[in-house]
């Protein structure tokens, strides 16, 4: 089987896994969960880094730089804001 096909299998399995992982979340966790998964797609930062590294010429450099900044804000801001939200759900002493 081609690598492309195998990757497609991985894609499909991930879809099902994503569905299963989230079934039946209590509604009070909807916002933190949205925020937490939001942080995870910050992995686009990797894409930004790869693109910036391979950039040629001013425009590509500029675009790559912006992508890295945005991706980095997504990752770090995302995890931090989620943590702050979840910190509030602590049980009283």
């Amino acid at each position, binding site marked *: 089987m081609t690598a*492309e096909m195998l990757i497609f299998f*991985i894609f499909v399995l*991930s879809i099902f896994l*994503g*569905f299963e*992982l*989230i079934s039946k*979340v*209590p*509604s009070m*966790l909807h*916002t*933190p*969960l*949205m*925020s*937490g*998964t*939001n*942080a*995870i*797609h*910050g*992995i*686009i*930062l990797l*894409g*930004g*880094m*790869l*693109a*910036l*590294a391979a*950039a*040629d010429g001013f425009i590509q450099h500029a*675009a*790559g730089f*912006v*992508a*890295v*900044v*945005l*991706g*980095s*804000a*997504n*990752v*770090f*801001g*995302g*995890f*931090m*804001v*989620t*943590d702050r*939200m*979840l910190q509030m759900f*602590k*049980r*009283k002493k």
Partner: protein
Amino acid sequence: MIISLAFLIVSVLFITGIKLLASPKTARRGNLIAGVGMLIALFAVLPLLHDSHGNAVSLGKWFLLITGILLGLIVGAAGAYKVKMTAMPQMVALFNGAGGGAAALVAAIEFAHVTRDSSLTFVVSMLCAAIIGAVSLSGSIIAYLKLEGHFDKPVTYPAQQAINCVLFLASVLLAVVMAAGSHSMVLMLLFLALALALGVLMVMPIGGADMPVVISLLNSFTGLAVAADGFAINNIAMIIAGTLVGSSGTILTLAMCQAMNRPVTNVLFSAFGKVDAAAASADVATGSVKPVQADEAALLLGMAARVVIVPGYGLAVAQAQHQVRQLSDELAKKGVEVSFAIHPVAGRMPGHMNVLLAEADVSYDQLIEMDEINPEMDRVDVCLVIGANDVVNPAAREDKSSPIYGMPIIEAEKAGTVIVMKRSMGKGFAGIENALFLRDNCRMLFGDAKASLQELVTLVKAG
């Protein structure tokens, strides 16, 4: 090989993180675990970096890379720690937009590297990433602005569905042209512009209170865009992480709509709230409501054995979370059993009441979910409804013609006495009358929630 294994570990950490995020006790740990995964991913990608000729990355580029990451970190951290608790959804919208924008930019840069030999899968995944990422970017910005209150009402205009359709078809056409071999950068820019416009036009007609659902949807969009980028640049961690977010985000969006008992299509396409918004602010219900003064209400509360407080959007508007906690403490001192009944869609974002009360340090053992409290409601002496309206509206159970018919509600009317605190006979989010206020056992305590609560606290303390 080692890098692949690192990415496998990253994927496992993300999966575990999401799983733990879905349960209250482990949620925080889940977020940390996913964060560790992300750090590993950041280091694992370093050996893969190279310039367009396959050579090692120059010092200047390293400088750019590190500056960019640090800049993002600073901006992100500042946003995350400065934002007020109740403005969290706005913040999430912005971070999501950032991710979408990054995904679109990465796709555009990769597009510049497309040659005649590039495989079709490569080009198509890039085009998908570009359009979805750009829609997510502009959509998130509009969602942010709406949540900040910059557009009072859903913006509607004639034939909006038709215009969106035309826009969408135009971008698909453009995509086909590009996939067929026209790799001009001008077309790419046009394509991105169309996508940005599409994002704006899609979100503009949706009511501000539905923004949490929209953000959740755009969140799953960004996930898919990241996965598509992952296909294009052949990075397995991006594919898996993006897809997980895409599919779990979709389920989450549906779960949010379900909690409001509205189909997702109704949220996205019906400009809910538009129709009734005007009526809601002006119209004051008539009928025999029985007002109550603060001193009598304090008496009723002080003598009760069991009080259930139903908080709603008005409590958040009044920023009275600390006052309600004081009241609950004072009552507890008098031996009254106080608990909070939390409706899943009370307020304007899922978990709004939990976050609000948590800010005032209300223990979550005191919070009871709707399904648990309803069967016990007839054993409750006083039900204190603070700034909630739709979530206690009996029409949801009784009136088949009501727009909220079928939505599960907190059955406040079953309690011995119901005291409703609000400023007027104003309507709630759904813009409909509430027959609860006319019931025999219901008394209205008019006034801003914060002021009234303060008064109650003083009276209960004194009494």
